[in-house]
């Protein structure tokens, strides 16, 4: 059963009289527990696609199904936010941690919006930080962590609400190759534990970690490679 299915999804940006097709009729199926890559050069539309899958953006046309359920794209933001917090964890190239908060507070942060008890959220966050090898770093602020460590905190944050899907946008883009490899190892391990992982990247070496790769160019799917 596919956990994510895109059917003929199109996204058109309009600016004045000019309209740009960022995504043109893309159909993708991702099975539960898969690790796949969406690959393409910058401007290819892969980020737009990720935003649509991540429910941060609404397609102009076409359907998105999560857990075989069609997402009603006219539903209010608050409903989309709820699905997002339950089903999807984000990992960004820029890490996007809040600099004034400790690693622990950063990991706990998404639970505020899911109304999880503070105590259980903290326990869970400590466990997740231990799992990514940062047990001794929980009180550190992002400025006191290395790039690789920062991205691990971000991974722990993505996992705090126990989502089925992890969307990783260039997760190693700001890291040296060694830290990058370590992060990819963490993601592959997560996949082995059953998480569905979608890697968005322009880097073939990262895409190689995936079982399948969708190549995108100018908003169109040009190739599906095993």
């Amino acid at each position, binding site marked *: 059963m596919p956990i994510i299915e895109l059917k003929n999804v199109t996204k058109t940006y309009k600016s004045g009289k000019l309209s740009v097709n960022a995504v043109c009729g893309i159909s993708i199926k991702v099975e539960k527990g898969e690790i796949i890559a969406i690959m393409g050069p910058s401007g290819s539309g892969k980020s737009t696609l990720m*935003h649509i899958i*991540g429910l*941060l*953006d609404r397609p102009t046309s076409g359907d998105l199904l999560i857990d075989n359920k069609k997402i009603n794209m006219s539903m209010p*933001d*608050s409903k989309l*936010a*709820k699905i*997002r*917090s*339950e089903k999807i964890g*984000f990992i*960004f190239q820029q890490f*996007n941690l*809040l600099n*004034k*908060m400790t690693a622990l507070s950063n990991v706990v*942060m*998404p639970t*505020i*919006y*899911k109304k999880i008890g503070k105590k259980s959220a903290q326990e869970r966050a400590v466990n997740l930080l231990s799992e990514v090898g940062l047990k001794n770093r929980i009180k550190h602020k992002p400025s006191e962590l290395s790039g690789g460590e920062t991205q691990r905190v971000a991974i722990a*944050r993505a996992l705090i*609400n126990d989502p089925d899907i992890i969307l990783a946008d260039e997760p190693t883009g700001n890291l040296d190759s060694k830290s990058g490899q370590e992060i990819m190892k963490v993601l592959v391990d997560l996949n082995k534990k059953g998480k569905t992982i979608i890697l968005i990247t322009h880097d073939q070496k990262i895409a190689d970690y995936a079982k399948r790769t969708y190549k995108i160019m100018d908003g169109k799917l040009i190739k599906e490679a095993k």
Partner: protein
Amino acid sequence: MIEGIKSALMSIFGNKVRSLLTVLGIVIGVSSVTILISLGQGLKNDVSGLVKGFGSNLLFVVAGKIDTNNPQGMQQTNPANFVSGNVLTVSDMDKISEVEGVDKIAPMSLVPGEISYNDKKTIPMIIGTYPEIGETLQIIKVESGATFKSNKSGNVVIIGPKTKKDLFENEDPVNKIVKVGKEDFKVIGVFSEVEASSVFGDQFSTLAAIPFDTATRINQNKVNIQRIMIKVTDGYKVLDVKESVKSTMLKNHENEEDFTVLTQDDIVGLLDDLLGLLTTLVSAIASISLLVGGIGIMNIMLVTVTERTKEIGLRKAVGATRFDIALQFLIEAVMVTMVGGLIGLGISFAVSGVVASKTDLTPAITPSVVGLAIGISTIIGVIFGLWPALRAAKKDPIEALRYE
């Protein structure tokens, strides 16, 4: 909510200088309002305490018409009337004496001049009055010596405790001869000490009383009565006697109401009106400061929202709704203004402490003043934080995440 408060405090203390400058307007506004109200309250407590000391069965007749039922009564009164000495007459006093329920009566007729003894001088408030002064104006009592026998007792004087101290130090002044203006007077008594008041200062302690007829002679035979003080007979209702005195006065003044009969409550009420007016005025000025402060808050909150665009994007990505974001920034604005309000309140407490220690006035910071300060600052935070909060909530998460 608690997370919101925590994050707000973090953001406030993370930018201490900026936060402090931002709340300055609120601090000034809140402290000026609370200081004024507490001073006013202190003044009111003080004066009503003093006025109550006059005795509740006391009536005052003053020149000029004051509408005590109308809060603007004071404004419609020509202030010159209060000190005018040619409205109230001896005939008025004679008629009032005959009114049922009037026990004692004493006028107050100011005599300019100084009192000297040997080479020492002092300028007290000298009044010509009746022997019954101590029984009417119950706040002053003849402590040693005696009051004069009648209005025709000649050049005798009862001096206040301050005058005694200034001229005689530890000597007993009774039976000593002092000069009032250029004439010799015999001191026959000393009034008891009256606690200094913020409004009247130690005026009551400097009060010196001479017989009414002597005062009239010194004033070149011009009858010059500023006040008539009436003590109501026990068992009579003060308000009933007030009405009788008023109608007697009206008859005597050919129905021209150029005087006012005041009870103790009327005097306190008039003070209330005056303070109310003053409070409104200063509140209006303070509200300008609060408005400017509020705009400052709005400005800084807009800057904060822009600075934290990426954070907003992230929070939305991990599940925050528009409402969550709006609430977060609104709480932050309210926390900033509340901190301002609390600082303002702290300043008020400090100023009140200084005022209380340096003057006779004790400002009263009541719980309602504290509530008002917190209330005002919260409302300012909500009003001026709302727009920035809504702007934050409306941010597109994708744009926000891309923001550098």
